[in-house]
């Protein structure tokens, strides 16, 4: 697993190996530390990506195994960003493993989506329950869901998301925008 440069600008990545005794714990967390200190964050990201508890638990387990086996390249500085990267990559790996066909083709947004609101300046807040939002999120194609979760749930910026997903920043921008548009379509229909 390689770490594309240009992410958080942190030099000196170090691989995690099975023997963690030689590695300073302030730089490379053990999986026990991950579970203890970041367990709920990790589970939340996994749940938002997968949309259900069974898959979220499988995903978290896979993440902890990758941490333990040293399959994840550690990025010092942002532990939760690092965990988000492992989680998202494990999620997308699984998605690609499961489906036989290449990436789903997402249709272009209908023109009607632009300017559908009657009053352009009205900041009408549409309340939606978390379960409704999660259902709409789960209905998004994974390649749109992942950047949205990284952006709005985890709080990464576009450069970090591009690095995490190994896609160009422009692609991040368009996927986030189209993902949000699809989310709106599902939740305001």
């Amino acid at each position: 697993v390689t770490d594309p440069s240009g992410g958080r600008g942190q030099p000196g990545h170090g691989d995690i190996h099975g023997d963690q005794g030689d590695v300073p714990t302030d730089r490379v967390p053990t999986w026990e530390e991950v579970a203890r200190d970041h367990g709920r964050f990790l589970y939340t990201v996994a749940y938002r990506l997968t949309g259900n508890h069974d898959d979220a638990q499988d995903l978290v387990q896979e993440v902890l195994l990758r941490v333990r086996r040293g399959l994840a390249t550690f990025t010092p500085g942002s532990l939760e960003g690092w965990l988000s990267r492992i989680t998202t990559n494990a999620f997308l790996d699984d998605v690609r493993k499961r489906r036989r066909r290449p990436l789903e083709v997402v249709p272009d947004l209908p023109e009607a989506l632009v300017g559908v609101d009657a009053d352009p300046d009205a900041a009408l807040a549409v309340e939606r329950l978390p379960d409704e939002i999660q259902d709409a999120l789960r209905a998004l194609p994974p390649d749109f869901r992942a950047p949205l979760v990284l952006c709005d749930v985890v709080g990464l910026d576009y450069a970090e998301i591009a690095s995490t997903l190994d896609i160009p920043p422009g692609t991040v921008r368009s996927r986030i925008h189209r993902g949000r548009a699809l989310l709106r379509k599902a939740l305001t229909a």
Partner: protein
Amino acid sequence: MNAHLDDVISAYADGELTGDEAATAEAHLTACPSCRAELSATRQAKAWLSDLPEVMPPFGFYERMLLDPSATPRGRRARLSIRVGAISLAATASIWLAVVGMSGLDANRPSGLPALNSLVSLHQRTPPADRERPSDQGADAAQAQRAASLGLPAVIGGYQLATVVDRGDEQQATYTDGAKTMSVFVLLRYDIAESLLPLGSVERDFAGHPVWIVPGEPNPLILAQVGVNAIVLVGPDPVAPGMTEGVEAASSSRSILDRVQGAGEGLLEAFGFG
């Protein structure tokens, strides 16, 4: 007017545009009602996701995973009594006090230590309106009935039942003495694994049952196995300064024990251990 902003709108909403780009976008927005509407809707969609709550893992999820031989690098210790020296309590805000009553363990039921942090967090996040209900008012009849059906008494120590919250596999009841509030969680069909108590646990004795003092998070915590269910008491609320002087205080000071003893004995008594 130029073409519509399209995905520049999301980048603008996310603060991803440079100063020049943002100025250009703002100039367009001023003149274009359609893009203003799009920006408003984009912000709404962003807020939907960013306002989503954290998701709790199921109780014991991480603990079970850490125990799984196929996933753990090493076996876990079996005994933890009197290891106070291993962990300094000075850095912690308080202690957890755990009372583990023995019962027949059933291999078919989930085991392991529940996600104690999650319980403390749930307690702390219980709305103030529920936590601070005046003790002279107490719970309403329906709440009292639900508590009774769970085997929870109306009074524990000096604390009166205030509310009962249905959280699925765990039920939360809050008790208050008018000033302080504690929560009692009933984890349905849940076994507490003694061997999973955190390093640093100290064994004590309450009414003939083992008592465990465990270093931990901001609220004291009591665990008891009552039949097939586990009872976890969280609280009362934050520790006064001076109770966290360190290891010696944890092992010898009566003040920490005194702080939870009343509630602990009341709990044990209520469940037939007294």
